[in-house]
């Protein structure tokens, strides 16, 4: 560092002349590194989305959404109807379990638990739970549910709900924190009890932010594969039953078809990937829009 600093006669430390060439070169190199990193990140994104679009768009005919999976896997034909319905159904059931429990859990953390030891423990464990690999969730649900009750959409939904729960708890808690305390106090001043305050004042105020967080959690769950592989089995035909019998989902279909050499099967994988990415992107973009609107209202 000694060419960087110079000591004046009075003993002060100053950075040496900014015009010194090596320092300018280093600065330039760093700028190239930083801007270049952005390009390096954009390239794979463009490639992945590009391939998914180009290879998948040809699959999206009306039949794609309505027909059952083909009996002969290596030929073209049939559609992805059961898998699309499966993904939506399993994710919806998972959300139905995780959202109320997650919001209630966040309510406990923020409105009741707060700084207490239990509250801190739960908050910490929720953070830890977000890092549990999804395959471990799948193994867990297989052990406690699938062995006893067989393959079903519900098993998959259970595993996805476990993945979504900590995410919803943490994002909801952040949103509850943003609700100004004055609102709560005003509600108490009007004679409302705590539960009523939370339900009628706090939650509506935080609604936009909670929705945004929930949608992001749903988007993440819809794309998951590993927790579903052991718990939902495989099915060719539409299965609308939640508790009975195996079903299929887009992510599982992609995983299976990616491991075959047949053109038609791989084409189906790309089509399913496009469908899944479209679902996830729509949810993510909607979530961002809602969050932006909430932020704007907040800052206004």
């Amino acid at each position, binding site marked *: 560092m000694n060419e960087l600093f110079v000591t004046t006669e009075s003993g002060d430390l100053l950075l040496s002349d900014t015009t010194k060439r090596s320092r300018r070169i280093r600065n330039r190199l760093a700028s190239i590194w930083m801007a270049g990193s952005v390009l390096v990140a954009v390239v794979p994104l463009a490639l992945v989305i590009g391939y998914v679009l180009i290879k998948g768009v040809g699959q999206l005919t009306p039949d794609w959404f309505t027909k059952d999976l083909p009996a*002969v896997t*290596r030929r073209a034909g049939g559609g992805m109807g059961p898998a699309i319905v499966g993904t939506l159904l399993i994710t919806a059931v998972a959300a139905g379990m995780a959202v109320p429990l997650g919001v209630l859990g966040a309510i406990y953390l923020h409105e009741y638990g707060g700084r207490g030891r239990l509250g801190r423990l739960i908050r910490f464990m929720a953070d830890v739970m977000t890092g549990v690999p999804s395959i471990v969730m799948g193994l867990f649900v297989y052990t406690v549910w699938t062995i006893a009750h067989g393959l079903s959409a519900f098993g998959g939904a259970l595993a996805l709900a476990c993945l979504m729960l900590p995410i919803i708890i943490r994002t909801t808690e952040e949103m509850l924190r943003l609700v100004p305390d004055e609102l709560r106090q005003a509600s108490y001043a009007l004679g409302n009890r705590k539960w009523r305050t939370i339900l009628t004042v706090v939650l509506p105020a935080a609604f936009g932010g909670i929705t945004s967080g929930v949608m992001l959690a749903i988007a993440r769950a819809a794309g998951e594969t590993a927790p579903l592989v052991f718990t939902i089995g495989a099915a060719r035909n539409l299965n609308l039953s939640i508790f009975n019998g195996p079903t299929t989902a887009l992510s599982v279909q992609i995983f299976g078809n990616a*491991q075959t050499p047949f053109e038609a099967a791989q084409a189906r994988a790309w089509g399913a990937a496009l469908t899944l990415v479209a679902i996830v992107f729509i949810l993510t973009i909607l979530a961002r829009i809602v969050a932006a609107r909430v932020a704007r209202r907040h800052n206004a």
Partner: protein
Amino acid sequence: MRSPKKSLALLVAVLALFGVVAAACGGSKSDSDAKPDTTYDYASLSGTLNGSGATFPKAFYEETIAGFAGVAKGVTVNYNGVGSGQGKKDLAAGTSDWAGTDSLVADADKASFKGPFLYFPTVAAPITVSFNLSGVKTLNLSAATLAKIFTGSVTAWNDPAIAADNTGVTLPSTKITVAVRSDGSGTTSNFSKFLAAAAPEAFTLTAGDTVAWPSAQSAKGNAGVAQIVKATNGAIGYVDLSDAIASGLTFASIGNKDGKFVQPTLEGASAALAGATINADLTYSALNAAGADSYPITAGTYIIVYSSISNPTQASAIRGWINYVLTEGQTLAPEVDFAPLPTALRDKAIAQIASIQG
């Protein structure tokens, strides 16, 4: 004593009578092609038959399921290609109605089944040794060389052992990438049994549904192995003929018991099947068969069902499904690159359908 003329007339009359009776009794049994069984009442069957197991015959079962759905509109047949090992386990656990398997149930596992079961041979096909090597379109491999490749003693394509089988061919120095099955597989079982029988000194591993291949990339199902071979230069793997053709792979010619290098064709498979000994339970082995035209890695596959089924409708559906596989199915088999059963074996299998009770 009768006159010679009268004796001759009596003999002719008896022969004629015999001929008429013979023609009336068994016309179809003397055909070598299977004919669709138009007398079977498929339309009255109903139910759902869930099957799982080997990926080796998957393409064949998918074809026959599609065809069966046309004549038996009340029956839904499903087949999940999860490997012979899992197929047998599913049937033992009762989570499936029929299992597809290329390998027999081990004695130790028989107790886990819920009752006695029956083997129905369905089709047979060559197990190809598919490879992907740029610049090389034909390849001969003796059983010993094949064993050395798969046990890891031979690691490069220009190894002297391979060159010895292929005089006059320039082989590149590319490293060999061996592709095998990661799941419990009847194809693995048959392939490893062949190597153990045909090259016992070179094949030092234990044959079975899973083999501890020393250095090989693995994938699920025949389709998975086909994908590794197709995508990797220098790869070699064992894939059933149907999947290999559908993937556009190149096959090696394998040295058979008679010392000839034979391509995996349906003719080679039929030649191997012709001399196979059939056991009482209708299982057989066509591996390492004698005969100049025999393809030495010919494998048969079976459907396993319980011999006693509690639900009569279900039992009828199963009987109808198996009958379809053994009649119309045999005509469909060559279209997806499977060899139909030899007539004698097929007839025994059809006769065994009656043993399914319920």
